[in-house]
């Protein structure tokens, strides 16, 4: 789920107020293309790749990434979407309702999965995603691409491909949308 969305749900709540635009749409496009090149370089092509966008914030970025990979390599790697709501460790701490669909390609065994999300923060979403993916098969490797790494990890998880490293305060909120990346806070 996009961080801003989750922060707006109880028990947090409030309105997102942006302080600064840290990336615009062009910056994001360049970052996606760079990450696409890095993914191809690290994996020696795209043969075994499956790109998986995490619902909901990671899905548009995964779509852009697949388009960029197709531009470079001339064919599309398979694209899946994954909703990790039911694998989260904070069920009971905030209202969790599975809103979004999960749709993964049938065969994940032996493939290299690139998880794609908008913001990497505590790492708990990725922990949930790793658990969820294992229910669908046994990939050869799982990699992680994020548009923004804002720090404050609570688990031993690190990204393989990063659009932008963005130092933040813990109480700030990063919002990734179609126009760009905004840094701000939630106001009650």
């Amino acid at each position: 789920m996009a961080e801003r969305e989750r922060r707006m749900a109880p028990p947090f709540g409030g309105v997102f107020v942006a302080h600064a635009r840290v990336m615009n749409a062009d910056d994001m496009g360049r970052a996606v293309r760079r990450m696409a090149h890095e993914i191809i370089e690290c994996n020696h092509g795209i043969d075994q790749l499956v790109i998986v966008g995490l619902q909901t914030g990671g899905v548009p970025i995964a779509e852009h990434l697949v388009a960029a990979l197709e531009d470079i390599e001339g064919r599309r790697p398979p694209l899946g979407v994954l909703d990790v709501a039911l694998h989260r460790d904070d069920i009971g701490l905030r209202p969790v309702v599975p809103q979004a669909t999960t749709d993964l390609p049938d065969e994940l065994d032996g493939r290299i999965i690139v998880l794609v999300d908008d913001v990497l923060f505590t790492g708990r979403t990725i922990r949930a995603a790793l658990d969820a993916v294992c229910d669908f098969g046994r990939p050869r490797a799982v990699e992680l691409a994020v548009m923004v790494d804002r720090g404050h990890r609570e688990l031993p998880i690190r990204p393989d491909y990063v659009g932008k490293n963005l130092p933040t305060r813990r109480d700030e909120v990063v919002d990734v949308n179609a126009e760009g990346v905004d840094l701000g806070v939630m106001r009650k």
Partner: protein
Amino acid sequence: MNSSTGWDHGVGRHLLGIEGMGRSDLERILEVTDRFAEIGRRPIPKVPALRGRTVASVFFEDSTRTRLSFETAARRLSADTLTFTAGSSSLSKGESLRDTVEVIRSYGADVLVIRHGMAGTPHRVAQWTDAAVVNAGDGCHEHPTQALLDAYTLREHRGALDGMSIAIVGDILHSRVARSGVLAFSLLGAEVTLVAPTTLLPPSLEDWPVRVSHDLDDVIGSLDACYMLRMQRERHDDGLIPSLREYTADYGLSARRAERLPKDALILHPGPTNPGVEIAAEVAAAERSVILDQVANGVSVRMAVLFLLLGSVPDPDAVAEAN
């Protein structure tokens, strides 16, 4: 049906009946059901959402589908299950309902799924316990999860219930399935016709949002769905119908009668069927019969209900601890 915590996800603290729920509540549950249906199609159809929670099925009446599907739903959500059935309990030693409920609660049950022959039992139990209570059928009153899975099945095949013409045929008087179904289908915009002999209809239907017919052949040509109720064999002993054979001739869905249904009309039945009584075996197995879909959807709907009751609303104690 309102949530004391202020987050309204369609289900409040308990699911006692369709009565009192609104259209948006039903739609919310059906939407969430879509997500849980997908889990059933996974290679490992299990998510850790309700790990550490316990779902107790407390059945004072027999059941195959309802109990098994609640327990399957609980396991797919990684909850633990406790099963109480009247036949193998201390009821014969004079244990009271309240004792039973307290014993089960003391083993850590977070949800009590209750079926009882007396109308209103789940409502009563909900006053006694701080666990969530789900009505799995109380006497001739309500069976809300059956209505939800029926609505979900209709929606799955038709997209929406708005404007659908649905006949519920058979023993309406003794049917909790019919009562919950009428409320749910009409809330979702369908037009419901009850088809039964006068003896098998409740004495007053004034408050029910339905039309009534005593002639199945009269309405069958214009139906979008035909919902056959189970004919309880003991009813003819009560003198409510002349004989099962006569009932079948007038109200049974024979192969010949089923041919008069519009081509795309669906056939539903809550199970278990009495082949050759209310529905002919070949009709129950026909392509337009969605009886097996109902059974499969029962698990998804009950996953949604259990999750909405237990997982979707924050536990105040846990929140306080985490902060």
